């Protein structure tokens, strides 16, 4: 079995997620006891660190809140230092199903892609979201498709797997805030292969997206600027 030989690191960035994180970690370890589950505790003020440790995860605690990108990059640096073959980013809120992990790992196992995005939109799935969010994602998706010259749909998805080479790249260079979209451009710039795979996602169990309505305008402007800057760098 080729798959058994791959060293997989699950990276879960967590900021005040004590309510949901226990089950997220347990569910992953139940299905994949051989995976390393790494929680990056991004300066939480609640018991995230304790809860994650008790669920069996390895926990790295940042002394200050760095934001999602800075937290995830810490995980990539961990994975690069320990020579993992694959790193998978999974949200702490239970949105990403552990049953779907095999789906997004498969193309990397077969060396058909360097980066795999778990997507809500490739096929018709049961995922519901607001019209505003769909429009935002549609705009960003068209921009990425234009600049990356590859049709990609769910560009903001935080459910993604990367192989060793991309881990090394992200360990060195990754956006601090809202990194999901422009990291795709970085990956394409280096001529790595991206594949998008349809996955089922849960509605959020608790907490809310890091992208609230107030911040959505800033989000769109910042991400659009990042995409363009990364394309011409």
């Amino acid at each position: 079995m080729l798959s058994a030989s791959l060293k997989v690191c699950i990276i879960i960035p967590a900021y005040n997620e004590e309510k949901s994180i226990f089950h997220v970690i347990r569910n992953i370890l139940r299905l994949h006891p051989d995976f390393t589950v790494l929680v990056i505790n991004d300066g939480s003020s609640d018991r995230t660190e304790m809860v994650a440790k008790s669920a069996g995860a390895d926990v790295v605690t940042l002394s200050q809140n760095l934001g999602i990108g800075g937290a995830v990059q810490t995980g990539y640096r961990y994975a690069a230092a320990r020579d993992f073959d694959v790193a998978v980013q999974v949200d702490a809120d239970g949105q990403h199903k552990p049953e779907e992990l095999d789906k997004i790992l498969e193309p990397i196992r077969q060396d058909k892609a360097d980066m795999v995005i778990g997507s809500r939109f490739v096929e018709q799935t049961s995922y519901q979201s607001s019209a505003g969010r769909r429009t935002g994602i549609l705009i960003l998706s068209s921009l990425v498709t234009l600049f990356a010259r590859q049709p990609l749909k769910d560009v903001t998805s935080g459910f993604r797997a990367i192989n060793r080479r991309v881990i090394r790249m992200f360990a060195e260079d990754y956006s601090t805030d809202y990194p999901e979209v422009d990291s795709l451009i970085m990956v394409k710039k280096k001529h790595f292969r991206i594949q998008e795979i349809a996955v089922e996602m849960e509605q959020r169990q608790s907490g809310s997206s890091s992208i609230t309505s107030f911040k959505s305008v800033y989000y769109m402007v910042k991400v659009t600027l990042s995409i363009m800057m990364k394309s011409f760098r």
Partner: protein
Amino acid sequence: MEKVQIWTTGLSLALLIFVLQLIRKRYLREQYSLLWLLFCVIIIVFSLNTKLLNWTAAQLGIFYAPSLLFLVGIALCLLLILHLTVVVSRLMERTVRLTQELALMRHDLEKSEKGTDL
């Protein structure tokens, strides 16, 4: 020398001395002080030499010479602010890297203290 010239020269000299004093006491690093020193020198030159100010204004097609002072002043302020945001961006990148390194090292330390494998 006109009254206003004495005022402006005095004030700009005071600023120059203040900046030099800050550098001497290490409140301001040399590398970040260069723009300030340049700023001081320019306003001192224009304060002392009104002919130069009038001549430059005429060359640039500015009818009211003192407005050139405002232009230069605002331009230099913007340059200084831009310089500061560059410095802040670099600082932020370094703080992020330091926070990450610190967290990873503390994690490794805790592990090795417990005697488990890294």
